[in-house]
């Protein structure tokens, strides 16, 4: 048995437990994450193809043979998913609404990630007065009730897709800023950051080359949650009647169904947009949850 002692020990196989590949394998390797990715991909494909999948414009009013408006037709009669009270095709609105949801969520989340991450990084890195100032601004943003603020701002700016995006972006960065700051504060203390400083790296270089890559996964996690938050916010604003009247959106569809008094009978009008919203947000949550286990291995 003494032979066994001299058998050279194989070098430990380097298991890299970080990196984009590993994050991806975590997400795709779990049934929930995979489901989320598939559902999201479908939404993205539909949004990209958009008009190619529809039969005309979402505002187009359809008429019956006797020249009357094709109001509230059940699915399959004239249109695949029926028509709404104004004689418009529900399927077309649903497809084009996907695009709106994605545009709003991607742009406002990108804004949120950039502003929130930078505020958090700078506050943590410089500390002192800059930290106090930036965090007071963040506290102020936290004191503002989201939906009431959004309603007022959208009305003041006039309802349009861009103004909705601006409004949502205005407050969404607050959580990211706080979380990123907390994380950056601990990264800042690590040896390699100190080493970089001793080596004469500039402040900006330390922030973006040495600290930023280490908070990137966390930032991405907030991007994931931000997307679902933005989609729900846009839908809520549109449902309250402050949406862009010319854009097809899921919230707008529900608003129209509600104010025309059709929710009582026209299930084919109220169910699809709500289902799309729910499905989209669940898919984002599923992906986000797996990303979370990447950042916090204790959750695995």
């Amino acid at each position, binding site marked *: 048995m003494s032979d066994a002692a001299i058998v050279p020990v194989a070098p430990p196989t380097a298991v890299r437990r970080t990196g984009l590949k590993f994050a991806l394998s975590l997400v795709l390797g779990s049934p*929930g994450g995979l489901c989320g990715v598939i559902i999201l991909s479908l939404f993205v494909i539909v949004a990209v193809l958009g008009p190619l999948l529809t039969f005309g414009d979402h505002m187009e009013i359809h008429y019956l043979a006797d020249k009357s408006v094709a109001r509230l037709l059940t699915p399959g009669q004239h249109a695949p998913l029926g028509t709404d009270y104004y004689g418009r095709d529900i399927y077309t609105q649903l497809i084009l609404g996907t695009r709106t949801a994605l545009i709003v969520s991607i742009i406002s989340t990108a804004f949120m990630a950039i502003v929130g991450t930078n505020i958090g990084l700078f506050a943590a890195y410089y500390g002192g007065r800059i930290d106090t100032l930036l965090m*007071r601004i963040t*506290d*102020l943003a936290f*004191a*503002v*009730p989201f*939906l*009431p*603020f959004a*309603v*007022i*701002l959208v*009305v*003041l700016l006039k309802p349009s897709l861009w103004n909705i995006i601006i409004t949502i972006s205005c407050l969404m960065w607050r959580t990211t800023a706080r979380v990123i700051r907390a994380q950056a504060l601990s990264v800042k203390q690590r040896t390699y950051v100190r080493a970089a400083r001793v080596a004469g790296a500039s402040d900006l270089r330390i922030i973006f080359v040495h600290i930023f890559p280490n908070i990137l996964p966390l930032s991405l996690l907030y991007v994931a949650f931000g997307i*679902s938050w933005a989609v*729900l916010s846009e*839908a*809520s604003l549109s*449902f*309250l*009647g*402050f949406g862009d009247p010319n854009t097809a959106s899921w*919230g707008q569809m*529900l608003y129209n*169904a*509600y104010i025309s008094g059709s*929710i*009582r009978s026209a*299930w084919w009008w*109220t*169910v699809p*947009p*709500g289902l799309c*919203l*729910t499905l989209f*947000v*669940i898919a984002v*949550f*599923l992906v986000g949850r797996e990303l979370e286990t990447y950042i916090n291995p204790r959750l695995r």
Partner: protein
Amino acid sequence: MTTRALIAGRLFHTIVTLFLVLSMMWALFRLVPGDPLVIFLGQGELAPEQLNQLRAAWGLDQPLWVQYIHYLRNFVTADLGTSFFFRRPVLEVLAEPLANTLILMLPAVLIAIGAGIAFGSRLGWKRGSKSEAVWNLVILVPRAIPVFWLAIILLVVFSYQLGWFPIGGMKTMAFIPHTWWEALPGYDLLRHLALPLLVAVLTFISDPLLIMRTSMIDVADEDFVTFARARGLPDKKVRRLAQRNALMPVITYSAIMVGFAFGGQLLLEVVFSWPGMGRLMVNAVYHRDYPVAQAAFFLMAAVVIVLNFLVDMLYLYLDPRVSYE
């Protein structure tokens, strides 16, 4: 830093935040294009000379900074102005909707916190089991469903189809009880309350639930839990023990949730035609009733700010280890 200095510091910070929210609101409403007088009176109601007279009487001809000072002074002295739409003092207009919102939201928040704690602590305790994975998926659903859609679906099913509940509002016009239980006080209100309350609880429950769950998972690793197990206490008792120690983060969050309750739920109140703060604010914005919208918005923000301050104080009292800065 002494505790007194700490409290003074937080108080100062709270007041500054309130002041900043006020100023932000002023700036925001000053962005509105158009003459405030025309908005108030409607186009072409008065001759230009009369308009100028009114403008002078209301101080609208003063420089902006003077108007700003006036605005601050009025707010501090609780003179919130007159509603453009109702033509009544704003405070009067706000009183009833605020009460209505609290009737709906306070029970909702309390039930959500209670149920969230009970459920979250069990879920956190069951960490790693099969049923936990299933429940983790289930609790995603109320977070993902848009509130207003859930409200619409429940309204259609339980009010329109089954006829169990009224279709909205707070009371039935000229309500006549047919049976003895219908004659009980509060019966009609409870029937109106049921659906909005259910939806509100479902929307509020996920946050305390998830916070409690995480907190339980953290506490479960602590020595006193292991020790309690080693002493041979039954699992139920150990969980109770852990639960008490895991409550802190939920309590903090609860105060913030109560703050949200004052603002009401715009979406919920609109779907169920509940005459509360949220609906009042949305209608005020529709009708360009800026004094009401402003006051409602400020009230919602102020309650959150003040409660945050109280939570800090509570924390200081409950956990003396906490020190700020």
